[in-house]
C-alpha cells in the first residue's frame, strides 16, 4: 500500500544516484516540482526516460543530473528548442549526454511492454528511417503466422517512475483525468513509483476519463499543490504558456540558467 510522504522524503527515499528514472505526463500533469526536488537533492548519473523531455528534463540535464536520455521528442512545445538539452548533446555541457532515441509509438510501446511483464513489444514502425541505426533497442521480429517483418522495441522498466495526478485518497489510491498520457503504463512498468498530487481527499469521486491507480501498485504519494506548474492540472489550473516562452530566454545561456538554478532551486536549500 502506498505511503503518504513529503516530496523531499519521497525523492530522497525512491530516487537514487544512477537510477533509471521516468517522469511522465504527456503535455498535461507533468511532475515539475518533483523534477526540481531531484535537482535540489543533487542526484547524479541518472538515466532519464520520458517521451517528451520538455523543460523539466532541460532543467535536470542542465543541472548535471543526467548521464543518459531516453526519449522521443525533445522540444519546448510550441516554443522551440530545449537549449540545455541541445548544449549537452552538441557541446557536452555540463557533461556529455548519451541518447537513446525512439518515436512516440516506439516509446509508448516500450512502456506497454514494461507494464505487461513482456521483454519487448511489436509495432509497425521505424521502417526506412535512420533511427534503428543508432539504437540497439530497436530490432525486428518476424510474424510466425504471416512471415511479415515488424519492428520490435525492448521493454522499459524504470527503477522509479514519478508522475503527478489530481488526487489521492488517504489510503493512497490515485486518480488522474483528462489527457492521461502514458502514466498508468509508466507506473506499472516501474519497480518503484512516486505520485505527487494536487490534494489528498477522503473519497475519490468517480470522474469521466479518469484513471485510478490502486494504492497497492504505488510506492508513495506526496501532496504537492501546483506540482505540475507550469504544465497544467485539469480541474485545478491551466497551462502557463508564458512560462514556457520565458524558459526559452532563461535556458539560452549557461549563465542565466545557472543564475536561475541558484535562485529558484538551490536558494534556501539546507
Amino acid at each position, binding site marked *: 500500500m502506498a505511503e503518504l510522504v513529503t516530496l523531499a522524503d519521497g525523492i530522497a527515499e525512491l530516487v537514487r544516484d544512477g537510477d533509471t528514472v521516468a517522469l511522465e505526463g504527456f503535455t498535461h500533469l507533468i511532475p515539475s516540482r518533483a523534477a526540481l526536488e531531484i535537482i535540489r537533492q543533487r542526484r547524479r548519473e541518472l538515466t532519464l526516460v520520458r517521451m517528451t523531455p520538455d523543460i523539466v528534463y532541460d532543467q535536470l540535464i542542465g543541472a548535471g543530473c543526467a548521464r543518459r536520455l531516453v526519449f522521443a521528442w525533445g*522540444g519546448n512545445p510550441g516554443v522551440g528548442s530545449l537549449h540545455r*538539452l541541445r548544449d549537452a548533446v*552538441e557541446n557536452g555541457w555540463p557533461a556529455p549526454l548519451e541518447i537513446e532515441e525512439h518515436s*512516440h509509438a516506439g516509446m509508448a*510501446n516500450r512502456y506497454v511492454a514494461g507494464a505487461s511483464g513482456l521483454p519487448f513489444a511489436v509495432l*509497425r514502425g*521505424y521502417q526506412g528511417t*535512420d533511427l534503428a541505426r543508432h539504437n540497439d533497442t530497436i530490432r525486428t521480429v518476424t510474424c510466425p503466422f504471416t512471415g511479415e517483418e515488424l519492428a520490435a522495441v525492448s521493454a522499459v522498466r524504470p527503477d522509479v517512475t514519478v508522475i503527478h495526478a489530481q488526487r489521492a485518497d488517504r489510503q493512497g489510491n490515485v486518480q488522474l483525468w483528462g*489527457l492521461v498520457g502514458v502514466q498508468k503504463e509508466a507506473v506499472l512498468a516501474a519497480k518503484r513509483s512516486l505520485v505527487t498530487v494536487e490534494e489528498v481527499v477522503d473519497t475519490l469521486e468517480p470522474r469521466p476519463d479518469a484513471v485510478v491507480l490502486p494504492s497497492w501498485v504505488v510506492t508513495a504519494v506526496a501532496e504537492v499543490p501546483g506540482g505540475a506548474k507550469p504544465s497544467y492540472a*485539469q480541474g485545478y489550473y491551466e497551462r502557463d504558456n508564458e512560462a514556457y516562452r520565458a524558459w526559452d530566454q532563461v535556458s539560452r545561456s549557461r549563465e542565466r540558467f545557472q543564475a536561475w538554478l541558484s535562485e529558484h532551486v538551490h536558494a534556501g536549500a539546507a
Partner: protein
Amino acid sequence: MSWTTDEMMSVEAARSLVGHVSCFVGIGLPSTAANLARRVHNPDLVLIYESGAVGAKPTRLPLSIGDGELAETADAVVSVPEIFNYWLQPGRIDVGFLSAAQLDRYANLNTTFIGGDYAHPRVRLPGSGGAPEIAASCREVFIMVRQSPRTFVERLDFVTSVGFGAGHDAREKLGLRGRGPVRVVTDVGVLEPDPVTRELTLTRVHPGVDVADVRAATGWELKVAPSLEVTEPPTEEELTVLRGLVERSKP
C-alpha cells in the same frame, strides 16, 4: 484583401482537407491549417492529436498538443499508447499532417539533426515524436513547410520519417501501407509526387510567384509539371477566419 505567403500556405493546406474524414494533427503550421479547415472547408473534419484527443474542437490554436481544451472538447480521450496502437497504426486515419526541418525530393523528412553527425550534431532538433508512424500509417500525408534551399535539400542529414524512400516503389517495398505524402504545400506553391518516380514535382504556384522563385528556393533540380496551375487566392472568408483564429490564440 492582401495576404502573406504564410497565410496563402495555410489556406491552401486547409483546402486540401476537403472530403476527408479525419486528420492527425501536429502543432504549428499543420494545426493552423487543420483548424482553419474545420471552420471553413470541412466542418465535420475529425481532428486527432497524439496526446489522446480524438475529435477535438479547439476554439483557439493550441500552443501545445496537450492543451486542456483538446481533452475538454474531444469526442473521446484515450491514452497515448492507444492513440498510436488502435487509432494511428491500423491506418484508419485519412490524413497525417507533418512539417519538417529538411525534406528531400522524395518527401522524406528530417526532424532529428542538421550538420555534423548523429553523435556530434551541429544543430540538434527535437527528434521524431509521432512523425515516423504518422508518415507510415495515415492513408495520405500532407506536408507543410516553408520552401528554401536549406529546407529543400539534395540529401537529408537524417531520415526521421519516410516519404517515398529512394523513389519508385521503395515505399511499398518497405511495407508502409499508407499512400505517403501526396501533397507538399509551401509558401510558394504545391508539389506532388510524380505517379511513377514519386519525385516531387511543382504542380502549382501561389499567385504572384514565378517558377524561377520556386527553383531558387529548392536545393535540387526541381521538376515542374507541364500544366502548371496557379493557386486560387485566399477568399475574404478564409482570411478573416484565419486571422481571427491566430488573433484569438495570441498569448
